[in-house]
């Protein structure tokens, strides 16, 4: 007893580790946040203020002209619409296909399905540069350049591996006896999926919806390659495009950047309440 008490460290003793780690994290957080803060600061300054005082000065007053300009610009409306027209269908399609494939891989395995699954997952590891030129030629031959279609198709396809992986692993946690119980009750495989497996997989669906939406919304490469005219631009290409119209439109660009990141933020806030565990609790024993 006496020994044990003696070896206990004094609570007053200084332990440098947590402090060191905290400082590291704080520095990292600042580094990550700095660009965002810069953008925020510049979005509420006039072009003159930016030119005179630089990016990092705290503005003396709140100038909302940049936001007014951005929100009133019909080209920006077009960018937003185009981005939605790409992001929503591509997100939905990639998740839908991932759900179907994931269900088959986890609940209806067939000869060679594990190998096929690995092949499909390996699709995640192709750098886009490798497939860029063939894809361009392919869509060119279909006459789809400067439309939104190539972007929708490509994002759908690129999303399949991650969607399949996540859904397969999530469906694997849904007990087989639930599927069998539903089948005995007269459900067909599709009804098992929609009435039992999917409602239990809301956390996975929410994660995927957030991931895919953010990724596709923020994508710069594919719209840049497949669209040329201003009417077909998506928002991320559009931000850069504003630079061409105005000499040094830092303020406007900052404002547009902030406005452009709102939808992903909203999507995240909307879905985060489904990021909960324990959906299958009470299904089987315990």
């Amino acid at each position, binding site marked *: 007893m006496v020994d044990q008490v003696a070896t206990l460290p004094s609570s007053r003793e200084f332990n440098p580790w947590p402090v060191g780690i905290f400082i590291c994290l704080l520095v990292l957080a600042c580094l990550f946040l700095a660009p965002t803060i810069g953008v925020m600061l510049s979005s509420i300054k006039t072009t003159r203020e930016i030119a005179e005082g630089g990016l990092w000065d705290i503005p003396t007053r709140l100038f909302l002209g940049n936001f007014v300009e951005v929100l009133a610009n019909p080209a920006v409306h077009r960018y937003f619409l185009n981005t939605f027209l790409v992001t929503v269908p591509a997100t939905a399609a990639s998740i839908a296909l991932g759900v179907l494939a994931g269900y088959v891989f986890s609940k209806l395995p067939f000869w060679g399905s594990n190998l096929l699954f690995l092949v499909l997952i390996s699709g995640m590891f192709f750098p886009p540069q490798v497939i860029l030129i063939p894809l361009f030629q392919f869509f060119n031959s279909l006459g789809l350049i400067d439309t939104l279609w190539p972007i929708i198709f490509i994002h759908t396809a690129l999303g399949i591996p991650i969607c399949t992986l996540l859904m397969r692993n999530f469906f694997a946690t849904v*007990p087989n*006896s*639930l599927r*069998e*119980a*539903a*089948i*005995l*009750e*007269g*459900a067909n495989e599709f*009804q098992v999926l929609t*009435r*039992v497996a999917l*409602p*239990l997989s809301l956390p996975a669906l929410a994660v995927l919806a957030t991931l895919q939406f953010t990724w596709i919304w923020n994508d710069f490469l594919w719209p840049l390659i497949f669209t040329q005219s201003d009417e077909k631009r998506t928002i991320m290409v559009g931000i850069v495009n504003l630079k061409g119209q105005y000499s040094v439109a830092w303020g406007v660009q900052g404002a547009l950047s902030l406005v452009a990141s709102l939808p992903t933020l909203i999507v995240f806030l909307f879905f985060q309440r489904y990021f909960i565990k324990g*959906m*299958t*609790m*009470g*299904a*089987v*024993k315990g």
Partner: protein
Amino acid sequence: MANLILRNVSKAFGTTDVIKSVNLEVSHGEFVVFVGPSGCGKSTLLRLITGLEEVTDGQIIIEDRDVTYLKPSKREVAMVFQSYALFPHLTVAENIGFGLKLSKVPKDEISARVKEVASVLRVENLLARKPRQLSGGQRQRVAIGRSIIRQPKVFLFDEPLSNLDAALRVVMRIEITRLHQNLGATMIYVTHDQTEAMTLADRIVVLNEGRIEQVGSPLKLYENPINRFVAGFIGSPAMNFIKGTIDTDDNKMIARLGPYTMEINKPNLNQGMEIEVGIRPEHIAIVSPEEGILTAEVEIIEKLGVESMLYLKTEASEELLTVRTDPKHTIGTGDRLGLKLPESELHFFDQKGDLV
């Protein structure tokens, strides 16, 4: 009328034969219990009847209809899983009405029938809850409710009570008996529990390594097992077995059990035959060491209240003999006793394990 017929039903997973040519007829309203050691294929047999697994060979007939290759939902069978398999995202009412909703029964009718079933199973006041808000016994009731609402032709239960504690198991066992009487439905029930098997069954089917060893009423299996496997499997505590040989002495047939001999009168036993004698714990009579055929020493005494179990060391076999006695006896550990084995209660098995 036969409600369910299995004809030469076989099932192999890859190259392992799990069910080997099972033949069984279950009549209307019968309660049949499958018992057997773990891995003998009880669950597989149930799954073959439901259609969750397809037979490798043979035929399954439900109410004069060959269902061998029909989909599970077309067979009109219902199964209650050991794990309950309730849908966790649905309420109790939605769970019970799941099948009706799928078959597009009007809403009013569903809710009326759900209420009816819920009152039979006494879960009326739980209808709005989710499965995770229920106790084990309540979950099992809901699972049973889901199975009875569609009025299937055959009910299948795969160890439905094994997740419940002992007291609740007794309650649920009685409920299942009541349900069987009320519905008059054909039920097939898998269990590990001897008491459940003996009390619930009209007939017990003893399975071993994918084969049926014996089918019969609980008492018939208890009193007249046709082989050593059934004799050893049915009954708790298990039957005692003593190895021996048949011999003659002064023209009388005797059985030599280790150093002991006893006179027997069994015309179909031959001299020199190697046999095994089985006797139930309650049939061994305790007498004074001088009177007994066997002498034994008491190793362990288990006092169970209504009865006591004595575990006795003899020279007849390596294993201890179990004897069931009145708890009021004054026997203590280490006492020497004489034992008598009444011939009418003996079961003789040949080397293959068959009754002779």
